[in-house]
């Protein structure tokens, strides 16, 4: 009796396994179609020349800020199509300018941006969500000095033929080894650096 029950069970398991592997169409029809189809891409934008990307922090109690003169932002964004939205921003670290030549030289050096060895930083985002106040959050990733960490970007989107994106993020510099060694004292230079951006956008043709 036991033998036949065990044999029947083994047969049933084998049979269902065989059915699963040899009948793929069965599972496809059982699942909803939406999870399988790719989202339609949102409208593409490029940045106009007056767009800015800046950072601000302080050293030894003295505030200072700087901007990246060279960066390219490839954006796909539509408030009605967040799943199809994408951000891909390439930042030329060597274009950093804090209105102080000695400080800029230090920033590009190996203790900070290490711009000669790794000239570019990159920010990419494929997930977006909407906040209650109408702003959005890009749950993006920043790649800097060979390290990639999540950095959410909170931004507002002023729609129209030439939209404007105004956003800010907090980047923990030590997460990316920016200002290490003798410079890692967060009492002197805080860990969190405020990054702000204002992008004037044009439709990409």
């Amino acid at each position, binding site marked *: 009796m036991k033998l036949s029950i065990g044999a029947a069970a083994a047969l049933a398991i084998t049979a269902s396994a065989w059915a699963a592997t040899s009948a793929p169409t069965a599972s496809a029809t059982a699942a909803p179609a939406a999870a399988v189809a790719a989202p339609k891409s949102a409208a593409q934008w490029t940045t106009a020349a007056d767009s800015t990307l800046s950072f601000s922090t302080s050293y030894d109690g003295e505030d200072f800020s700087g901007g990246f003169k060279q960066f390219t932002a490839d954006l796909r964004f539509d408030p009605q199509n967040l799943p199809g939205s994408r951000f891909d921003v390439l930042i030329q670290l060597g274009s950093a300018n804090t*209105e102080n*030549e*000695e400080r800029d030289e*230090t920033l590009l050096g190996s*203790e900070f941006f290490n711009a000669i060895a790794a000239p570019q930083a990159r920010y990419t985002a494929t997930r977006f969500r909407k906040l209650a106040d109408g702003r959005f959050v890009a749950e993006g990733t920043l790649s800097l000095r060979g390290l990639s960490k999540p950095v959410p970007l909170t931004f507002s989107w002023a729609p129209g033929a030439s939209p404007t994106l105004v956003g800010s993020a907090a980047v923990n510099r030590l997460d990316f080894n920016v200002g290490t060694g003798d410079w890692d004292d967060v009492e002197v230079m805080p860990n969190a650096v405020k990054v702000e951006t204002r992008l004037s956008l044009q439709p990409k043709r």
Partner: protein
Amino acid sequence: MPIRNSIDRWGSLSIGLHWLTVVMILSLVTVGFVMSDLPNTPFKRDVYLLHKSFGLTVLALTALRLLWRVLQPTPALPESMPTSQRWAARLGHAGLYGLMLAIPASGWLYNWASNFATPWFGFTLLARAGAVDRELKATAQLAHEWGVYALLALLLTHAGAAFWHHYKLRDNTLVRMTPWMKSRS
């Protein structure tokens, strides 16, 4: 020793300020020559801050010394000194005072044109300009460096003349500024 000067000797204020300035200038020149080669660390920044603070101190003290010199009698040059040497002495001292003002002033301009705040031992005397002025920065840097070369040349002449008075002419010129040494005549 009196604080004030008299017709034949320096008072303790003039002597004190003279030697305080000597120590500060020798330190500033030495550090100034090596500090730009320091590795890029917070220590280098601290050295620069001290250099600027002491430099501004020399500027202020020199201005005070000049004021003191105007308000006070200046000990007379030795009676036997020929007119040509008197003019050399006056020119030499004017040159020293001029450089002791121009060198820190040009350093201050160099700092300003580089868009740094003006520091003084942890205080900020003047907020930064807001932007770099490249031309002013280059000019001020040149003036600052060449001023130091001129100062070093004048200092050698100044010390040499003092030793000449003391060891060759055997008068009291040097001793008036170094009262710890034995008086001549």
